[in-house]
């Protein structure tokens, strides 16, 4: 039996199984959305495949009862961890009225759910960074012990809002954790054509905050980095920048042909798929048996099926609902 690394981080067997389950659920929902798209049932998918370990590892390190999150469009694993359900994600995929993110107004991947403290997101990238900083400013002003957590891709770190937000957070030492999910591609443009620095986390230095690069395919490594960042933030030691290095296993979106990278490169990356490696870790360390895994997989399949059926049958918003909620009513 190999070492139980998670115990050193204070995680129980039940908790790591829960992490794996959330990662697998994220993957299965995502895969289902692609099937539905290719079957002509939903117009669009934007994927988180390959990034679930970073997303779930990070979100598990937060306080899911009080922290605020500003996720970006691939963060299916983050929002699932923060309480959004498979059914709610499917309602969003089908653009149905009951979708809690937007009532069917936004494309899938534009998350938001106030009851779970998930800030609403848009499509222009990095605009969520100052929002998370604003929530952290409120925490500091009101002397509350929560943090805000914001994610984005490595390409988006070139936007002014990334710089403006992190500089603001650094100046005022605000309790905000920024995690960059570096999946190596901004649609078709690879890392070395996007960013001149050798990695993203060294940018932290100029914002006066801690910066660290971690293996985004290892949920435990990401968990540890975010947990430490959260502890610093709560202590009043300010913001952190975490770069989780992952790989985007799918095309950018359902409308992207993915012809700009070699099939061999994607195949190679799949060998490091965290869904596989974390499963092996749990099996090899004796945390989970094959039987547990079977049961869990069946449970998730059932959940995704039920969510799909429910969302497909759910009603759309009435046409004239397009007129509602421009201002307070």
């Amino acid at each position: 039996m190999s070492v139980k690394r998670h115990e050193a981080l204070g995680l129980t067997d039940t908790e790591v199984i829960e992490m794996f389950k959330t990662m697998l659920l994220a993957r299965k929902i995502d895969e289902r959305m692609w099937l539905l798209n290719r079957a002509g049932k939903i117009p669009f998918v934007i994927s988180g495949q390959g990034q679930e370990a970073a997303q779930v590892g990070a979100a598990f390190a937060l306080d899911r009862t009080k922290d605020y999150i500003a996720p970006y469009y691939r963060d299916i694993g983050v929002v699932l961890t923060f309480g959004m359900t498979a059914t709610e994600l499917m309602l969003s995929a089908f653009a149905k009225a009951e979708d809690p993110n937007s009532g069917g107004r936004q494309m899938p991947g534009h998350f938001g759910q106030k009851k779970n403290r998930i800030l609403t997101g848009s499509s222009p990238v990095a605009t969520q960074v100052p929002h998370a900083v604003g929530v952290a400013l409120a925490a500091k002003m009101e002397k509350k012990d929560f943090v805000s957590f914001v994610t984005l891709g490595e390409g988006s770190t070139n936007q002014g809002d990334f710089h403006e937000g992190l500089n603001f957070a650094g100046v005022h030492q605000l309790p905000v954790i920024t995690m960059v999910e570096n999946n190596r591609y901004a649609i078709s443009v690879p890392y070395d054509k996007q960013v001149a620095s050798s990695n993203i986390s060294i940018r932290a230095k100029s914002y006066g905050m801690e910066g660290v690069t971690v293996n985004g395919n290892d949920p435990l490594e990401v968990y540890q980095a975010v947990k430490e960042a959260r502890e610093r933030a709560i202590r009043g030691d300010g913001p952190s920048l975490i770069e989780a290095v992952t790989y985007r296993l799918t095309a950018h979106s359902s409308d992207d042909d993915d012809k700009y990278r070699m099939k061999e490169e994607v195949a190679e990356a799949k060998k490091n798929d965290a869904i596989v490696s974390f499963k092996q870790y749990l099996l090899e360390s004796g945390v989970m048996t094959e039987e547990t895994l079977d049961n869990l997989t069946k449970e998730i399949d059932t959940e995704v099926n039920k969510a799909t059926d429910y969302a497909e049958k759910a009603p759309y918003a009435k046409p004239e609902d397009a007129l509602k909620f421009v201002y307070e009513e």
Partner: protein
Amino acid sequence: MPVMSYIQAVTAALREEMLRDEKVFILGEDVGKKGGVFRATEGLYDEFGEYRVLDTPLSESAIAGVGIGAAMYGMRPVAEMQFADFILPAVNQILSEAARIRYRSNNDWNVPITIRAPYGGGVHGALYHSQSVEAIFANQPGLKIVMPSTPYDVKGLLKSAIRDNDPVLFFEHKRAYRLLKEEVPDEDYTIPIGKADVKREGSDITVITYGLCVHFALQAAEKLAQEGIDVHILDLRTVYPLDQEAIIEAARKTGKVLLITEDNKEGSILSEVAAIIAEHCLFDLDAPIQRLAGPDVPAMPYAPTMEKFFMINPDKCEKAMRDLAEF
């Protein structure tokens, strides 16, 4: 009742709202220790402390974006853009985010932010310290744009903006700051956003305008009264969304309408006002709708000759009003 200048009314509204609600805070460049480059926040840093009157980095998109985040959490930020001209780096945050957050979240989230900015010319501010920027924002449902013309309106409307549960752009005419003074009640009062105000009753022609131009029109109207021309003046106060009812009523009242703005003529607030009148009042009109506005050049130049040429003034108003009356 104390006499207050336009800018003192700004400070009074901010201070009273900060005393009333501890969620209200100010953020912007030089708003803290210095009290603002125009002194709009004078004394507030000493009274309320660093985090209620926050000096931010020189970073307009962050001023708006951080404010939006704090507002989503439940604070009542009043963000200051040092000059309206410098709001442009924050436009993505204002349009893509603040204006759309209630709508895109299906009423789940909202953004109770006020963004204040001094606008307008006649102060030797040249291209980038004189502009009127309201037209950029005035076709964005989800936003409200308030442009008061008097100290009394400033205090009541700024309080309403801060208490509003949706984002409000509050544009203050910088030349009005110390030029205009009037009696302003010490006590708490609000003026509803979205309501225009008749600043002068009249029966011969109607002038519809806002901001500093209201005063130029009023001065011109007093002169024309001596010639027996009786001018009706409607102050829009909120330029988006427009008070359609008041515009239609004012246009019908005299059947002769002159619209005045300091902004460039093309695609200005006036264009929408003219369209509303054309849609609703065509058969009530006795003359074509007239517009008096800045010329269609990028912005007003620095040299006094060219600045004066660009700016609206009482003489230009008087001439346009007389021409319309005589039509």
